């Protein structure tokens, strides 16, 4: 493995460039982005490669400014839940057996349909790519149990994805100047005028 290739920089790149490239990639593959995603394992693998490459370059350059501060593998093991009403369903979702999981949940009726039931329904739909339904199930789960960390983080992740803005690009207001710009320019000009001792004229 050529660590420079992994980071996408030339071997002649400065320490700062290496660091910037590393940061970019770490941001791209960060486990937070892929929480609840079926591709999470692939992202984790990428992240590991990038971390290793960066460590290698740092070792090679030793006294350079690039300090070893690789992102740690985030603690994304969803085994954090303690008391679940649906251990089987959670296992099936983990194994990717979505239809079976769905069947069990559909068999639950009335009061059995607690917040976790809605959350897990959301999980199944999310895995299937049925994002709209998933979103509404997550919302219901959070409404029923607003203090549940697991449900909340799933909803937050989804909220982030429902706003697409790659690389901060915005088609509106990309050019031209607003009223604010005009005002600031006038104020600046006025100040400059005052400096030159031109009073009264502007």
């Amino acid at each position, binding site marked *: 493995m050529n660590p420079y290739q992994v980071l996408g920089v030339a071997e002649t790149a400065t320490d700062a460039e290496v660091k910037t490239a590393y940061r970019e990639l770490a941001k*791209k*593959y960060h486990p937070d*982005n*892929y929480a609840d*995603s*079926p*591709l999470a394992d*692939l*992202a984790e693998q*990428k992240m590991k490669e990038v971390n290793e490459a960066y460590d290698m370059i740092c070792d090679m350059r030793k006294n350079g400014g690039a300090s070893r501060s690789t992102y740690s593998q985030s603690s994304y093991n969803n085994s954090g839940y303690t008391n679940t009403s649906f251990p089987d369903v959670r296992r099936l979702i983990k194994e990717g057996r979505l239809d079976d999981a769905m069947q069990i949940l559909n068999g639950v009726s009335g009061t059995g349909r607690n917040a976790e039931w809605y959350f897990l329904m959301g999980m199944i*739909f999310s895995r*299937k*790519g*049925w*994002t*709209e*339904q998933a*979103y509404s199930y997550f919302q219901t789960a959070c409404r029923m149990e607003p203090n549940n960390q697991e449900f909340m983080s799933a909803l937050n992740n*989804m909220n*982030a*994805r*429902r*706003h*697409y803005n*790659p*690389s901060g*690009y915005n*088609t509106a207001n990309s050019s031209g100047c607003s009223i604010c710009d005009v005002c600031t320019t006038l104020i600046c000009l006025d100040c400059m005028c005052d400096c030159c001792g031109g009073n009264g004229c502007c």
Partner: protein
Amino acid sequence: MVFGFVTVDKSEMLGKDFDAYKAIYCSLCKQLGKEYTFLSRFILSYDCTFYAVMALSLEDSCSGFCVGRCKFNPLKKCNYLKSNEESLSKAAALSIISVYYKLVDNIADGGFFEKLYCYCLMPFFSVWHKKAKKKFPKIESAVAQMSKAQFEAERDITCSIDKAADPTATMLSKVLQILTDNEEKRRILSAYGYFLGKWIYLIDAANDYEDDVKKGNFNPYVIAYGDDKASHIKDINASLDHCLSECLLSYNLLEVKRFDRIIENLLFYGLPKKQKSVLYKENEK
């Protein structure tokens, strides 16, 4: 499949990338002419050009370009890909097959003149469709299943947004998966294709919203939000944004060998711009 929404944003593109994109477009046109006679060239679409871009980006080698003459305008010289027949052939087959099933759909539920028009075209497409099916049975079965599933989904008057978009999404997921044998890449392409397909279906539904309300046609957004598009525009936008986010997340994991800037142009600028112009009726430029 719906046509015309998957376009690049030229103003955000480097000249050389646009030349490459154009060359792929012209090569696909040429391939259609070669495999399915001159007439079939008229069905050339940007969506299938994008499929060709994806196919080429995953191939092991790329032959580079050469100069040739355009069949429609003999005075014009175009760039063409030197070889890479397989990728272009797949894209040509997808073009033929998806137009064929569109005709089948229109004959089933179109108006009188639409039906008449489709009947006239059918003899040609039946022959071409057979040929494409023989070459790429997997592409054919993916589109055939989509057509069938779509028909069934549209019969359900309570059909959800997700359910309505599922057939198109699944189809694109399948046709992209056949571009590689690598298991990891297949998983990535499966998710990537699913959400791209979902976006394509939903942007078309958003585009036809008013029209479908008027004519009483099937439209999942109309089922979900009634005839009140204005107050749900944010929800519609969020559902489309969600698709693009998932698309980009999958794409980031995919290692493509070339044309990455074309694909990124599409994901970063082309599709979001299109979405904005459809939802907020902004003038495109």
